[in-house]
């Protein structure tokens, strides 16, 4: 019993500590943004890694989720004679929830983990100390380009996931399940508003921020040795995604009220 309480307490303290570290990291990054010139070469390299190289997985994720969601909806709505209502349901779900959340999952797995692993390796091989010894502030050199690249890339990737989901949903409903295309598209346009798209994009922006801060923090705080790198990598994905899911709940209500 005591051990259980101790372990829960340690977990809770660990979470608080991580929260504090993340806030400090964010403040440090924002301060560096104003104090140092932006390193465009590094920024472009990070946009290529975070953004461009993520495009295929995001297309596949968005496309297939949109496709199966449209199919499942059609199977149910068919009995009610409401097949053409599948369009707006798919579009709104993709915009508001599925697009940003699933995109965040893929980016946490592909980019967040890579960031954590790279920074943790740099830490244990003294590369971060080497940067400091060469009079370079590590946050400015390592984190700022990743931060900017993530904030630029993530909303675009979410937009792409939404587009692919809606497109794939249309294709499956209209060409495979033979829902009348005109009604499908008319209903989609009628019930999907700019607000829905904005909710997705804004969520994507904040999810990107969460993935970046958790991934970088895990990397920078990694303990020594190969085990430390492995742990930082795994935890970066799990923690980032848990925070994304919880944040998503609050964003859903908040953004619905604001936008």
């Amino acid at each position: 019993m005591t051990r259980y309480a101790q372990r829960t307490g340690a977990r809770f303290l660990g979470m608080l500590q991580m929260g504090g570290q993340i806030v400090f990291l964010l403040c440090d990054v924002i301060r560096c943004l104003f104090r140092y010139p932006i390193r465009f070469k590094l920024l472009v390299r990070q946009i290529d890694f975070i953004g461009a190289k993520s495009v295929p997985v995001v297309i596949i994720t968005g496309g297939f989720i949109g496709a199966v969601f449209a199919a499942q909806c059609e199977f149910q709505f068919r009995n009610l004679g409401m097949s053409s209502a599948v369009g707006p349901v798919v579009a709104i779900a993709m915009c508001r929830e599925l697009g940003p959340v699933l995109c965040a999952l893929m980016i946490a797995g592909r980019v967040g983990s890579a960031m954590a692993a790279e920074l943790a390796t740099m830490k244990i091989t003294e590369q971060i100390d080497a940067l400091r010894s060469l009079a370079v502030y590590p946050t400015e050199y390592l984190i700022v380009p990743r931060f900017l690249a993530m904030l630029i890339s993530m909303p675009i990737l979410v937009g792409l996931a939404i587009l692919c989901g809606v497109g794939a949903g249309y294709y499956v409903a209209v060409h495979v399940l033979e829902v009348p295309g005109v009604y499908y598209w008319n209903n989609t346009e009628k019930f999907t508003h700019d607000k829905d798209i904005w909710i997705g994009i804004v969520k994507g922006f904040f999810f990107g921020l969460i993935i970046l801060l958790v991934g970088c923090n895990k990397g920078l705080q990694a303990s020594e040795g190969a085990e430390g790198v492995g742990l930082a990598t795994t935890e970066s994905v799990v923690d980032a995604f848990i925070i994304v899911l919880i944040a998503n709940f609050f964003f859903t209500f908040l953004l619905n009220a604001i936008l």
Partner: protein
Amino acid sequence: MSNASLESNAAPLVRLDGVEKKLGRQQVLRGVNLDIRRGERMVIIGRSGGGKSVLLKHIIALMQPDAGHVWFRDHDLAQLNEEQLVPIRKETGMLFQNGALFDSLSVGENVAFPLREKGDTNEKEIQAEVERALKIVDLPNQSHKWPSELSGGMRKRVALARAAIAKPALMLYDEPTSGLDPVVSDSINKLMVRLGDELQMTSVIVTHDMVSAREVGDRIAMLYEGRIYCVDQPKVVLESQDPIIKRFVNGISDASDAIF
């Protein structure tokens, strides 16, 4: 003769004053006092795991002491934050034990890093300087390679070129000759002497290599149980009859050292 003896009465470039450091549960440094004079080559010897690298990291504030002060010129490094340390670190260079080359940059980019950070923009001059530095460490025409393609010794030499290319006032070497063959070790020793003599660089060299200590050092300090046990001319230290120094210098283990 180096400048050390000429300026021995001048204010030291680096002064360690009662530096204490605990890592985990281990008290690594227990009050280190040491002055490093301008232009001298100070060799620090001591047992493995005895805190030599930790001590070295305190000199450019890569680690902060739990107690005590580290003075660099008139600055108390323990009072400065990471950003205030940037201008001070522009005057220093450090060779890390395993090189610590940046994996994401090629050998040439690694060596050019301090020059680009300093604000040099003339690519032609940078390339010429990089080639010259690589030639000095006996690695000509290797700038296109990646750190992962190099052996441990080669990495260390590239790291030396990177640390020294901006001609810092203070160079710190963390085991510069470990893992190198005797010929390359000798060339590194000569290079350390040359950098010191020609550029009036002050050097702090952490090493286990007694040949290197003898050849390079103006003074040798021995770190023992978290404190500086002795500081003196190489000849005095290496020929000392003190049992602790003698055992270390001659590499004689105690029976108790050999028990698993």
